[in-house]
């Protein structure tokens, strides 16, 4: 199959927030191996399954159709399912005023 990039690790810095806990939003950084081609959604799912089961993000179609997975990556609005990751990223919610939890918004 298609191989991309050599073995490497990237920093994924995510703006976390939960109404429930009432803490101010804060950044949390994870180290994620990038040995194959991955989208932002793949990375978030990896973190979810390996490091932090509470990290909230929205996805549905996973192919760029539903437009439900919009987040800010390095300051730019992207669809997390189609955006391919090539290096360190900062991930923030689409609209900081409308956050339910982490990257999930109203």
């Amino acid at each position, binding site marked *: 199959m298609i191989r991309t990039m050599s073995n490497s690790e990237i920093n994924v810095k995510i703006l976390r927030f939960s109404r429930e806990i009432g803490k101010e939003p804060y950044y949390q950084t994870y180290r994620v191996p990038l040995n194959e*081609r991955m989208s932002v959604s793949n990375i978030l799912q990896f973190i979810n399954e390996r490091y932090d089961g509470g990290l909230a993000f929205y996805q549905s179609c*996973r192919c760029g159709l539903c437009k439900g997975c919009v987040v800010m990556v390095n300051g730019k609005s992207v669809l997390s399912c189609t955006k391919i990751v090539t290096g360190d990223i900062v991930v923030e919610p689409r609209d900081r005023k409308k956050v339910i939890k982490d990257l999930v918004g*109203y």
Partner: protein
Amino acid sequence: MNTIYDTDVLIIGSEGAGTRAAIAAAKQGASVLIVTKGRIGKSGATLMAAADISVDGASIFDVLGLSVGNSKDSPQIFLEDILRAGKFINNLPLAEKIVEAAPIRVKEMMAWGMKIRGVMQCPGHRYPRGVSTTGREIVRVLNKQLRSVDLTVKEYTFVIDLLTTGNSVIGAIGLDLRTGEFAVFRARAVILATGGGSMLYPIQTGAVELTGDGYAMALRAGARLVDFEMIQFMPLCLIGPLPYRGSYFPFSLVAESVDSLDGWLLNRRGERFMRRWDPELLEKTTRDKLSAAIGYEVKHGRGTPNGGIYLSLAHLPRNILDDFANRTLKLHLKKNWRFEGFDFSFIRDILSRGEALEVGPACHFFVGGIDVDLDCQTSLPGLFAAGEVVGGLHGANRLSGNACMEILVAGEMAGRKAAEYAKQANGSVVDQSQIDEIVTEAQAPLERKGSHTTFMVKKKIQERAWGKVGPIRDGQELEGALASLKELTHEHHQSGLTCKDRVYNPEWIQVLQNRNLLILLEAIIQCALAREESRGVHYRIDWPQQIEKWRCNLVVELTASGLEIYPRNPIE
């Protein structure tokens, strides 16, 4: 304290079938509440459809007024094709009713502004019947129409179970993901429009919400399922890299319509193995045969390193590939090789170099489902169902375009009939102990210190489903799988949450979904084991032939002693 919502008609699921039902119910004057796990217009399979909506050729001409219709076709001939594909175990009266109303529903969608791109002919249809549009367009038009009627939508609400009194359904209970609190819905009628359950499998074409909650809730409330062993796989999907896993792009290139490219499937020895399965049609055979053949090759160690099979276009001159992107009708494929949201020019490059793609089957559609009557009512008074969650129309296999036809026609029927039912139903009192029981069970994982994570359990369920009730099945293996389900269920009950948040907690959502996936898995295993033959999408290695005595439906019910499976003659 749980929040309580009162409505005449509660609709669970906010996409094709759900919104169409909502419009119909609201037009009858009923108060309508739609709840959805995700977001409206941003969830479910409908918006992902390519999409063709089937209408018989004569009506395309007579009713839709399109010159591309074909008066040689008729509703009768269309029905024959549906029965042929469904291997004659379809619910014939239901199919008749849906085929008959399809032209009216599609004409109405066109009047509401749905743009169409032509009419295509897909495999299994003897005439061109696929009114071509996109799923996004269907969703756009339905949502526009939804805004013209009076109703309420509640997003981010995961419905966990139905509420019953006697055997009547009188509401549902859901988890409001935004607050982490439970919501009680009191309704005179409930419509399940929760779509399919393709997330039971590790590779799927559909959306992440589709964990078959509707089937599981229906069973727990006492409703019946039919033909649950009938799972349709999309044979030629990308199996990697990760972002593209489950994309049916390769299928679109070589198999989607009668006009697709000629692609060769090769095993790791370079053998064009479809010669053994269908010497005449080869790769142009039906989806079920392709899926079974690929599954068989992989199972016998003749697959690719990543567990797929090779798809080669190396025998074609390169410019045929480029010209293809310019002429195709149904595809999301654009001239620059963008397909859906992806840039697949790297795939064009791979193919242009004469290299093969690694492809494999992905779970695509639940052919069977909830058993309904001609009013879309289940065996439980007050519970209706529409869309992919229903079984019967397609029998043992579904033709292209017939799911989108079903959501529009059955959605309208279910909405109208549920509203009529609600008018004469007495409001019932919801039993608090029933609510308490559901809430207690749903909250248990929050308090548990588990030995497994809920994601680990999901992965195991998916692997089991793929290995035992994927495109090929085997009696002995099915028996083994059934016996080992206890262990998996035990792991599920032992799984705890590492994060204890109530608000939008992915682990909590997952454990509630695992509860449903496990029921789905058991029902499919049991049905697949019972059906000792191969029919439609159900392929048994140890029973490769279709056998006349099995021309029957398998019915699933949940009793006090567990799942019960029994045969029933097809409804004619």
